[in-house]
């Protein structure tokens, strides 16, 4: 057979985050632990489909009138309206003034990509500033969207907290109008969030430099357990009348991971601009996948529009968030009990699904090899993957890594 036309194509490495699960699946050890990808697990270590989601699905399947016709390019209209209300607040003036355009997209990733491509086509500043560190997929999403990616200081390894003065300095030095990616809550991978005073300072600085905020909201309700509290930073920016983008994901807070449900909202200065922006968003989406998938968005819409189901959801969501907070405390206490060297209080100070342990890549490799613990090499662990039963094993591994490995 003649040479392949694809001969020059090399094997790509596994995705660093999703690749952790691939490696975990290959491991035969009975004590293996997957703390890689941020997918919630029950105390029994099982994936969870929320009861309210099952209920909504049953309703949809039972509804004889439902069809599978193409959605509009912008997706399910109800879903879009309800998603905007969820993040901006039902009484948001921006919504009431029709200044928000919301389009259904493929979870958080898809919303970020569509937003990025839109900005690369239509916004005058093609640079986006992302925090250091950030979710591993962010730089790739924005680069392929056509933006140039720069970073701003965020995590301070010395304090295992926020490098606030570095953050302010870097944003101050950004060119006027530049786009700035902000994690709405539960920063991934560090779990370190600004305080509300710090958020206010960030807002003032950004508005004074006409920097364009682009929020990534993947954990609303998951961070503190309260949907409203977790949306506060976004609402703070919208309240000042300015413009911003927000990417929402329902992967974690509704457990709809594989359904790929999310939304991109663009808050504009006026209704007319919002309408024109929406028409241009459609031109980005049509050549990418034509129109979005119906199943997940229908589930979300059914839950958000029904008072009882919505309440049921908030209860199940809080239970997930509470279990994670409890894992944080248990891990911290276990390390205290072992007398593991170092200050581990960041485990309980950080918020959301992930803990940035501060372990280096050698220590991580050691933990994988000797203890069959799978995590990303930056030292990020998904608390959602822990249970009371497995915490001792993790504590042993951390203790060994810190006391033995370099």
């Amino acid at each position, binding site marked *: 057979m*003649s040479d*392949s*036309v*694809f001969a020059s*194509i*090399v*094997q*790509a490495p596994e*995705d660093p985050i*999703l690749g952790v699960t691939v490696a975990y699946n290959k491991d035969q050890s009975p004590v293996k632990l997957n703390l890689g*990808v941020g997918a919630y697990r029950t105390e029994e270590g099982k*994936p969870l*489909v929320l009861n309210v989601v099952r209920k909504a*699905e049953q309703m949809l*399947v039972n509804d004889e009138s439902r*069809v*599978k*016709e*193409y*959605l*509009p*390019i912008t997706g399910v209209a109800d879903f879009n309206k309800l998603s905007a209300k969820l993040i901006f607040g039902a009484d948001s003036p921006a919504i009431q003034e029709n200044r928000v355009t919301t389009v259904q997209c*493929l*979870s958080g*990733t898809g919303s970020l990509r569509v937003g990025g*491509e839109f900005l690369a086509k239509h*916004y*005058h500043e093609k640079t986006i500033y992302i925090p250091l560190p950030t979710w591993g*997929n962010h730089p*790739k999403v924005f680069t392929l969207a056509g933006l140039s990616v720069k970073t701003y200081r965020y995590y301070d390894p010395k304090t295992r907290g926020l490098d606030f003065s570095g953050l302010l300095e870097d944003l101050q030095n950004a060119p006027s*109008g530049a786009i700035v990616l902000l994690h709405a809550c539960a920063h991934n991978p560090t779990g370190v969030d600004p305080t509300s005073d710090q958020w*206010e300072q960030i807002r*003032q600085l950004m*508005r*004074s*430099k*006409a920097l364009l905020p682009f929020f990534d909201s993947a954990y609303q309700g998951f961070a503190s357990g309260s949907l409203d509290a977790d949306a506060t930073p976004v609402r703070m920016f919208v309240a*000042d*009348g*300015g*413009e911003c983008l927000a990417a929402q994901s329902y992967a974690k807070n509704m457990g709809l*991971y*594989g359904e*790929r449900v999310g939304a991109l909202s663009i808050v*504009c*200065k006026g209704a007319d*601009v919002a*309408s*024109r*922006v929406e028409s*241009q968003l*459609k031109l980005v989406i*049509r*050549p*990418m*996948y*034509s129109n979005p*998938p119906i*199943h*997940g968005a229908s589930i979300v819409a059914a839950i958000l529009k029904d008072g009882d189901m919505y309440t049921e959801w908030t209860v199940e969501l809080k239970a997930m968030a509470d279990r994670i907070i409890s894992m944080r405390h248990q891990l911290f206490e276990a390390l205290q009990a072992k007398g593991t060297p170092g200050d581990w209080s960041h485990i309980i100070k950080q918020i959301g699904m992930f803990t940035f342990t501060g372990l280096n890549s050698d220590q991580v490799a050691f933990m994988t090899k000797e203890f069959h613990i799978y995590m990303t090499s930056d030292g990020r662990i998904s608390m959602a993957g822990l249970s009371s039963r497995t915490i001792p094993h993790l504590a042993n591994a951390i203790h060994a890594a810190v006391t033995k490995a370099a």
Partner: protein
Amino acid sequence: MASSLLSFGSASPLTLLDPLKVNPRVGGSNQATFLGKNFIKTKKSFTRTSMAVAVEVSKFNELTMAPPDPILGVSEAFRADTHEMKLNLGVGAYRTEDLQPYVLDVVKKAENLMLERGENKEYLPIEGLAAFNKATAELLFGVESSVLQQQRVATVQGLSGTGSLRLAAELIERYFPGAKVLISAPTWGNHKNIFNDAGVPWSEYRYYDPKTVGLDFDGMISDIKAAPAGSFVLLHGCAHNPTGIDPTPEQWEVIADVIQEKNHIPFFDVAYQGFASGSLDEDASSVRLFADRGMELLVAQSYSKNLGLYSERIGAINVVCSSSEVAQRVKSQLKRIARPMYSNPPIHGARIVANVVGSPDLFNEWKEEMALMAGRIKSVRQKLYDSITSKEKTSKDWSFILKQIGMFSFTGLNKAQSENMTSKWHVYMTKDGRISLAGLSAAKCDYLADAIIDSYHNVS
């Protein structure tokens, strides 16, 4: 532009701005209005901090309103029309004789099964559901195909046809820089958008001959031959969209010959497997012809029409390579393209397909339902032809209606005539003269015949 004039660069970041003392570079006139618009807001919750943005114009002010999508926009216009005789022959979505959308029985059965099983909603791998990928490749190439036996196909689940085409287009842009894609004249309207957004240059090969309302075969072969060696040739596997005109098996052999001679790479768009003739295998014969020759090729698949899964967005991109080792590498790079686009594809549609194809009973039931859908379309073609020829007594040959295949018919009506169809007769179609027979009922054939005859004869 307004937004750049209103720069706040001189203000220190943490001081508050008095709107009446805003940067005097703004035209010097009354600061409270700009371009005639009063943009200093007073709100109930007015605080000093909210004044920090009171004077800014939208960053998106320069955006123009984009035109509606030429295909999907037709349905929007149809919905807005209140005329009782209105007929939607725009988008290619199957309708029953009662002109209702149709959810296949096998799909309902599969969804009920899935719910009973209570499967989880975990992320799929980037390349999609393994059971789906296996089933879709087998359906396309045939379970006995050597390309599958030798594991030479890289299959990645994509977002229906569009998403699968886009993955392939991005692969071409990255690994075949400068290579062109040849697309038929005409072709599905979104093809060029996909290649444009992926950054892949394209040019057209002759395809539709308006004189015969058939295939310009010589033109097609000539243009494929003339293209630079190593071009990608986009071919519709069956039921060409928008014309409904497919090459004959003999013509496919010649097309394959020319492509091999020029070291071009065939790139099939298969959106109607099973829908064209009613037979899954027959509709895949063009793809299998090429695969059996040992050629490398790309194939984008969609389950929107043949399983009625339009809004579930389920399809796949298949890349047939010269060896399984190459196929593995290609698959890994397709994953690298998908990850920054949407991370991993949606599960629901993939599971439905896997369940239907994976169960012998459901699979057989599917084949029956598909034969019914394809059968209904063939019968309205016949009815429309009979209706037109019984009313219209000129020597014009309308047999193309019967020769064309699949959901669409290229009527040969021009833009003005197509517009007449809509404005006078409330028949919605695309401006290129394409009608979707899937949206036609036997009951409306007479009405449509009148509209076509009128537009053809009385409008130029």
